[in-house]
């Protein structure tokens, strides 16, 4: 039984979610491991969403927004860009591998790019194995 | 090596009959539907292409136009009405003009008036010649015997002389054809042994026209075969059995049976063909060049006067027979001297030769290919 990672994707409505829809209308196939949650802009993504996802059992989190300069709300993706390194250093402190959380820019016309990112990330997370968070939480629970 | 295109060539070919070739957009339906088009000779599309671009030396060295029998299927299938069948016919006319070193063929194709004038002049000269000869040594009232107007022996000599002349002309044209299509081809070299080994192809194609039989419509093949065999029969009788043919007035069945059969064959087929051209019944008869008419008209005059000759001789009307014979020769001489080496009739040599050469070249190309891939040679 190969390990099938569960990855939560946060996609912004205007670019990346539309790009993922385009992959669909173009019938471009990709791995089924990413489950998408729609937000209006990547700026809406609170770092706690990422932590919540990891806590609830996600093996990876993918964040997608518009390319810098093309944000539907002008600068939303820049805000995400600024929060991201802080989030990554926090996760590193928790011992969560770097490749589990990823930020990518996907435009509305990049259906193929979205599919490629999903496939790539799925394989990288698969290679890492199940998230250490789940195991740690279960161990913690067992102790109590 | 890049080949220089010559867009002006089309203007010349239009006079030979290729007015619609520009419409071709190379869908390839014609080559797909052609029953004869097979590697390495794919046509008519390739020839249409070379013509559109004016690749003169390529067209000159092509055998494809002669491999076509104008069944007309290609023209029927053509979605653009580019008349590939008629274009191949025009190419045959053009090649006939090219193979001929004298330039007379070209003149005939470009100017119908020139051809008609030439025919008339040759007819008049022949007529005058025969009359002068006749009057100089015989009586117009005598058909046979010592005082005959035109003794068979003299006509026989004349016939053979004429034959020699036109064979010489046709022969040189055929040699040129060989040079253009096989001799100067640097890529394919046919060994002498192959020529000898496959020589049977020449009489085979000539006498049976078996390729024509492969067309979907069988009737054209039958018509053409009957026409050609009748003509050849007649030719043999006249060249080798003239004395027997002239015997009479009693019927000499051993030769006259053949003669009558041949006449019937010629008469029926010529009339049918004339009618088809007039009524444009099938695709291949819808476009007629002046040379197509000249061919049939001369033939029918020759056959009619020939039959008349036979009849008059049987009836013992000697003066009339002599006069008729002069008229007969006035049609025969231009037909043989002009039509055979310089016009449509040359195809009787070019086509069998083309099939012979095509076979030789194809065999050589296949064997070279097999050598190249290291495969064993065909047995």
């Amino acid at each position, binding site marked *: 039984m190969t390990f099938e990672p*569960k990855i*939560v994707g946060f996609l912004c409505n*205007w670019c990346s979610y*539309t790009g*993922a*829809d385009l*992959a*669909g*209308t173009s*019938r*471009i*196939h*990709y791995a*089924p491991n990413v*489950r*998408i*949650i*729609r*937000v*209006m*802009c990547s*700026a*809406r*993504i*609170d770092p*706690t*969403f990422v932590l*919540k*996802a990891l806590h*609830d059992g*996600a093996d990876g989190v993918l964040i997608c927004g*518009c390319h810098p300069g*093309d944000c*539907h*709300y*002008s*600068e*939303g993706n820049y*805000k995400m860009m600024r929060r991201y390194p802080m989030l990554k250093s926090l996760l590193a402190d928790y011992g969560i591998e770097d490749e589990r959380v990823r930020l990518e820019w996907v*435009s*509305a*016309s990049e259906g193929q790019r979205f*599919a490629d990112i999903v496939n790539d990330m799925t394989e990288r997370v698969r290679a890492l194995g199940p998230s250490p968070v789940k195991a740690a939480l279960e161990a913690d629970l067992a102790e109590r | 090596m*890049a*080949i*220089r*295109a010559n*867009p002006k060539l*089309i203007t010349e070919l239009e006079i030979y009959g290729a007015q619609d070739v*520009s*419409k071709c*957009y*190379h869908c390839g339906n014609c080559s797909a539907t052609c029953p004869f088009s097979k590697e390495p000779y794919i046509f008519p599309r*390739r020839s249409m*292409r070379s013509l*559109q*671009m004016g*690749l003169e030396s*390529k067209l000159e060295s092509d055998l494809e136009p002669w491999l076509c029998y104008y069944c007309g299927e290609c023209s029927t299938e053509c979605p*653009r009405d580019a008349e590939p069948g008629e274009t191949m016919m025009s190419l045959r006319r053009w090649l006939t003009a090219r193979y001929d070193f004298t330039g007379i063929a070209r003149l005939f194709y470009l100017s119908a008036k020139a051809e008609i004038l030439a025919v008339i002049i040759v007819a008049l000269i022949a007529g005058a010649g025969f009359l002068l000869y006749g009057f100089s040594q015989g009586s117009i009232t005598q058909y046979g015997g010592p005082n005959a107007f035109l003794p068979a022996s003299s006509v026989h000599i004349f016939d053979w002389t004429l034959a020699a002349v036109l064979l010489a002309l046709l022969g040189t044209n055929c040699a040129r054809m060989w040079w253009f299509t096989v001799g100067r081809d640097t890529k394919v070299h046919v060994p002498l042994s192959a020529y000898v080994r496959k020589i049977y192809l020449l009489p085979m194609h000539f006498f049976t026209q078996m390729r024509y039989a492969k067309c979907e419509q069988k009737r054209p093949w039958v018509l053409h075969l009957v026409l050609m065999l009748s003509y050849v029969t007649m030719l043999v009788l006249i060249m080798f059995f003239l004395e027997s043919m002239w015997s009479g007035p009693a019927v000499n069945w051993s030769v006259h049976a053949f003669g009558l059969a041949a006449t019937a064959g010629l008469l029926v087929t010529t009339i049918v063909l004339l009618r088809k051209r007039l009524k444009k019944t099938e695709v291949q008869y819808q476009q007629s060049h002046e040379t197509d008419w000249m061919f049939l008209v001369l033939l029918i005059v020759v056959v009619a006067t020939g039959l008349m000759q036979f009849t008059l001789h049987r009836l013992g009307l000697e003066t009339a027979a002599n006069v008729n014979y002069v008229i007969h020769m006035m049609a025969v001489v231009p037909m043989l001297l002009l039509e055979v080496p310089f016009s449509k009739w040359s195809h009787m040599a070019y086509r069998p030769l083309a099939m012979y050469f095509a076979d030789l070249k194809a065999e050589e190309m296949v064997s070279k290919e097999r050598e190249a891939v290291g495969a064993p040679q065909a047995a």
Partner: protein
Amino acid sequence: MDDLKIGVFVCNCGTNIAKVIDCDAVIDSVERLPYVAVARTYKYMCSDPGQDMIQADIEEYGLDRVVVAACSPRMHEPTFRKALQKAGLNPYFLEMANIREQCSWVHDDPVAATEKAAALTAAAVMRVAHHEALERRSVDMCPNTLVIGGGIAGMSAALDLADAGNRVYLAERSDHLGGNVARADLTAPYLDSARDMLTERVTRVVEHPNIDVLLESQVRKVDGFVGNFKTTIRAKADDGAPVDSVYDVGSIIVCTGYKEFDASRITHYGYGKLPNVVTSFELEKMLRAGRVTTKEGKAPQYVAIIHCVGSRNLEFHAYCSRVCCMTALKYAHEVKSAVPGAYVSDIYIDMHAFGKGMEDFYRRSSEIKTLFLMYEKNDYPVIRKADATDDCDMLIEVNETLSGETIEMPADLVVLMVGMEAREDSEEVAHLVNISRDKDGWFIESHPKLDPVATTTDGVYIAGACQAPKDIPDSVAQARAAAARILARTALGKIDIDAVFAEVDEDKCSGCRMCNELCPYVAIEFDLEKRRSHVISALCKACGACVAACPSGAITARHFTDKQIFSEIEGVLA
């Protein structure tokens, strides 16, 4: 909340979803979730019987919330929201799960796809439980329109809008109307005069009482939102000094057109070096003047036309510029007319004769004895100067595919069919009106098939070649379609805009003012008396930047609250 009743409707979408996803299995898994009162599948949920079914169930089961697992919400969210509204339920009590574009259409393993669909549907169920009733806002719709670009598209749109009695501001950067069509002589395939076509348009536009033609004008700023835009346009005063004016408009149509590819970028065509290699536009100039000659002033004996210059080329632009094939045939006719003895050759890759009358036009071009030469993509012809002894000025070497030979085509004049490119100012224009561009620089439409003239920014439309290369009939069709869309709205007088915006809970707000600077729309003001921040809902576009940034968690994004998203995360990982 305890007596909440959620209805779950899983659509088969014919075989689009049902072919890969076991919809019954999805129903089984969601039935077990809390508050799910009814769960069922149907062939086409968006159809009338499908919607009737939802409405009937809302009544029968007294549903409070509805989940529709089907296509992308970008497709049918408005449809199902209307269905809820008809049944008397607040339209925001709907949540959709995208199990088509993002599931059945992209996965081939039915087991994995069904599992994912079940998870996405569960997420929607858990999210919708936290939805609140929201009311859409109604704002006035200003009937004025700004049309950016005075070419054939811009003028056509302006006329339709103006004829309906609305004011139009037509802003044109250059000093004349007509755009690229003004540079043409005749048009394919019927060889109509471009000039006549334009004169009709320009005259009507200039004389129209409802159209303000602003020449040598540039749009500098666009503020506001649909129905209520404020645009600043810079024009030239009489003395030449720049003067800015502000106009109130309800809609904007972008018709900025295209620019032609620079042929000198392709060195093997010798443009710029060989004097008798010209572009299509340069030939148009000659044709409009009525004389086609070489640089030396002689009538060309051989004219060659080369297609796909800069188009269908991985090095420059991979796309096809659509109009050049038929325009090239137009030139074959025009050149033969202007120089009767000339031999015209047309060197192409494929002949794109896609439209009305075009295949016949192609046939007619063959009949006038144009010689067509075909070359393969990426195996381009090369032009060189001929020798002095040749009867032509240049020779074009082509690896000709219809004959299989390498051909040298004589030419005295070569016409390069240069492709269309996005204008250099397209990036500036896109940022101005907040629309996006694709990788080639063309403006992106709302939906490539079903919504080619709207954009993701409500109230901003695109028409003509600025959206993608196209010919005059299609440009005019798009322009008039955009005008029709606007007229449909102005006829209503008011428009509904989304109820989704951010709100500050003043009790939680600490007055740190972090959010004030973050808002790209300057929609957050600080109340100096109360020392609290406050969102101006009319200006808020609901991006959520302030929500995520607030250290006190005082700002909530309606319809995208933390609680709703947290439930969605839980549902997706269940």
